[in-house]
């Protein structure tokens, strides 16, 4: 695998948008990986949280937006809580989801219409509301 780094890609406006939306500065991350080490759902991720940040640092926004990772994050805030540099990956993840959802692109992993009837009649309401807001815009 090879990567040609292009300065324009590094300075992609959309990546600045990720920083604005999440209120995080990507270059503050020194890639220690502590966020990934403590993430409860990392087993199901295709790209681990610290790698998502790395990809953004080197201008690979598309790759990140197409990852499964951003949809499996449970917003548990553990990554943010333990980051030695005060980077809140949870917020970066939310920003990335929003960027997809606001383009009216649906979440590839959850269709609102397909949330099962059992769930709706059984699960606590706040859980259903939270899922729809986080994962369906």
């Amino acid at each position: 695998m090879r990567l040609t780094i292009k300065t324009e890609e590094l300075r992609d406006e959309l990546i600045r948008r990720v920083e604005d939306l999440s209120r995080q500065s990507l270059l503050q991350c020194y890639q220690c990986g502590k966020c990934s080490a403590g993430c409860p759902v990392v087993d199901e991720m295709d790209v681990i949280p610290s790698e998502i940040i790395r990809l953004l640092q080197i201008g690979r926004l598309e790759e990140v937006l197409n990852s499964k990772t951003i949809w499996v994050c449970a917003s548990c805030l553990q990554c943010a809580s333990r980051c030695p540099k005060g980077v809140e990956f949870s917020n970066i993840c939310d920003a990335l989801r929003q960027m997809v959802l606001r383009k009216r692109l649906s979440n590839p992993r959850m269709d609102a219409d397909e949330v099962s009837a059992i769930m709706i009649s059984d699960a606590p309401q706040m859980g259903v509301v939270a899922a729809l807001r986080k994962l369906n815009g």
Partner: protein
Amino acid sequence: MKIPYYPGCTLHERALDFDVSARECAKAVGVELQELPIWTCCGAVFPLVSDNVMEILAPVRNLAYAAREGDKLVTLCSFCYHVLKRANKVVKDDPEKMEKANLFLRADTEAREEVESYTRKDYEGQVDVLHYLEMLRDVVGYDEVKKKLRRTLDGLRVAPYYGCMLLRPKKEMEFDDPEQPSIFEEFLDTLGCDVVDFAMKTECCGGFQIVADEDLAVQCSRNVVGSALKNGAEIIVTTCPLCRYNLDKKQDEMAKSVRGFKKIPVVYFTQLLGIALGIGGEHIDFSDNYVDPRPVLAGKSLL
């Protein structure tokens, strides 16, 4: 003592067992929880993106309602507590967002008849959002609670599960040490329980992912329940309907992937408090529990 109370949607309906036990217990320790005359859903999530003002409007509106009732607001559900507390902090720290929220509140007041009877003032973050546990510890006092107990829960091995939303982010929630918290342990100590320390008490139960991806969430909740079991717990207590759901109702799914899985009941902390305070009957209702806690409790002669 009367304290304004925000139940939130889930306690209003699907987690009535939590709501009812909490109100009864409060009475028993000398607090009347006064439900806000009007309130709406808090929205369940706190927006993590900077430009989303919309998602703080609902919590701020509820806080503005609360401001008319007093200077404190007690709530129980971890999600409600999280959202209300963080939204409150946004109002306090971010003048621009405060202004936006108040613009909305003004329009809202005009549009709705019920609220006209209130004299409207801008909301500037003046309400202190308290979790019920904080109310017990700081307003009532654990010592006072202890005096009111009818029985202690001696020998009951209880694992306190904090989950995510109460503790994180530390700087905003200011609830407890996010890694080695103690408010729950001290509470259980007050009731006389054997507190079970377990490593996963602050790890995620899977949260809202249960709606989108059950396997994913079960993986998390199995981890939590497994850790409580390994450390010898007989019962898990939570402060959150979603945690309760994930940890309790999904135990059949957990059992599928763990050999020799032993079921363990998951109850709200107010239900144990109720038992210790001698509250009985319909107020301490376990009919919604998937894993029935009654055998364990009966085994300790607590029913």
